[in-house]
């Protein structure tokens, strides 16, 4: 099957933005086209480009109408995508994956993962097996959204899928690692939330005063690495 039967669609998103859409499902292959296009736009020295926003299967490119007209922007975007969205780029992306991995230490269970036992009970596994399954895969950051630095991850084992809490917590501490249905994620900042909490990372995923303001970006791969409580604290984790 030719992966590139699905030519990108260019969709108007108002008179100052275009959506470049590569397909209609969620897959690492579509994501690699999204992230390659994102990099090309970001490094393309295009002064008229004001936002480049990658998501699961498309890139939103917003331009400054004072600097370029919609038709000229559309032509320029088509040209850039045509030059880079080709099958022979795929191998290069795959080779870069290992250079692109962010390791996230996680202290699982106990006070940091109050729902670990519930996840184990729901899935019929031991808490240790849940931890092993959660920290095994190389996860793909499909996109960042919802709040500053929140990663939408792909790659979790379906064996540890667990529904959200019936009643969300009013406060989930920053750094909490949770499971919601088939998804896993990390809360970059304290917020209300209904994800099942299985652990917490001492890393700070979001810092509005830093540049860049968050640790992860779309296209990163991440791996969760279990650490014990003393290590968690030695890495600056909050109580």
């Amino acid at each position: 099957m030719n992966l590139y039967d699905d030519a990108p669609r260019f969709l108007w998103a108002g008179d100052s933005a275009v959506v470049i859409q590569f397909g209609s499902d969620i897959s690492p292959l579509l994501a690699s086209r999204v992230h390659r296009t994102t990099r090309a736009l970001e490094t393309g020295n295009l002064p008229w480009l004001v936002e480049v926003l990658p998501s699961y299967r498309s890139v939103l490119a917003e331009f400054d109408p004072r600097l370029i007209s919609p038709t000229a922007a559309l032509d320029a975007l088509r040209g850039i995508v045509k030059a880079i969205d080709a099958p022979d780029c795929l191998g290069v992306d795959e080779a870069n994956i290992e250079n692109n991995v962010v390791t996230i230490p996680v202290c699982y269970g106990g006070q940091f993962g109050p729902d670990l036992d519930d996840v184990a009970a729901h899935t019929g596994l031991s808490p240790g097996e849940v931890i092993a399954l959660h920290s095994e895969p190389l996860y793909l950051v499909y996109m960042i959204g919802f709040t500053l630095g929140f990663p939408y991850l792909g790659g979790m084992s379906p064996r540890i899928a667990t529904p959200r809490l019936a009643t969300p917590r009013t406060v989930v501490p920053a750094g909490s690692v949770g499971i919601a249905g088939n998804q896993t994620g990390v809360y970059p900042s304290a917020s209300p939330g209904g994800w099942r909490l299985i652990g917490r990372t001492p890393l700070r995923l979001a810092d509005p005063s830093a540049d860049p303001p968050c640790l992860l970006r779309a296209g990163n791969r991440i791996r969760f690495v279990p650490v014990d409580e003393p290590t968690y604290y030695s890495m600056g984790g909050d109580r």
Partner: protein
Amino acid sequence: MANMLEVVNPGPLSMLQDLGRPGWMKYGVPPSGALDQEALTIANLLAGNPEGAAGIEITYGNFTARALAPTVLACAGAWAPVHVDGVSVPPWAAFSASPGQIVSIGAPTWGVRVYLAVRGGIAAPLVMGSASTYIRGALGGIDGQGRALRAGDLIATPDPPASVSGATAPACSVTARAVAALAKRQAVFEIAHSPESARASTSASAGCAIAVRVVMGPQDDHFTEAGRQTFAGEEFTLTNKADRMGLRFDGPAIEHIHGADIISDGMPPGAIQVPGDGAPIVMLADRQTTGGYPKIACVARADLDLLAHLRPGDRVRFVPLSAQDAHEALKQEQAASRVPGRALRIAIDGVEHVVALFELQ
């Protein structure tokens, strides 16, 4: 830093806004910024500031502050009475205040958001390059933590003050720009927000709905032909779910083809998303960066600022045009606002004001 104003009463909601923080959506941060960007720009230009200096976005007026130093201020945006120690001064113009004087901005007769600029700009910690307040994300604003203004807050100019660089527009073109922007907003909202209009709409008689130009897409193909006709042919009424994040409308349901879920994707400015109930939601500056409802259309840039002034109960019609036509409309409006036009004379509280003065050839 020099303290210029002390907030006595922030009214229902007042906060610092500049032209926003574009470029961070990929990290989950919306652009924020003044909802009526042209009005903030004009307030700044009238006050002698650079276009993008931080100003105060005042929602529904009822704002009072005490001057702490001799200062020059300017307002633009919604049409609201402005007083200094009880003496009326023109809205949409610069005025001065002396230490101890009370500056008050009353409830708007039309529009929603008034922008108050302070000569020299307003000092605030820059978060991702902007002073704009993003309340939901707890960032920006007077304290850097996304807080709205409250009584007792001190408004200071930065050190050194924001100043206009050498290449500025001459004063006459500033006022021409103000006249054009005011005329556009007045034409749209003066009748829509008059008490007579409110009576007319409650008695269900036909007044004139506000036309909002839109570009169809990116997901207009998720709707039936009938759904697209409903969207472009019917009127929609703004509910009370209206804030800086978005505007939720009531009206005839816009019909989807296969349900209302898409794979979440990026949220462009002015996106009009339609959830399962078929009622459109227009997304504004504090929108979430991604969303999973199909977007039938996006509001044209030329009309985006007008959304800042819609009130619950206002009726709108969405008028589709092509992206390039929307762009031409924006260019034409910008060009028209940079040539001298007519000064407007507007009565407020029974007193006639000349709103903007400029050299007539």
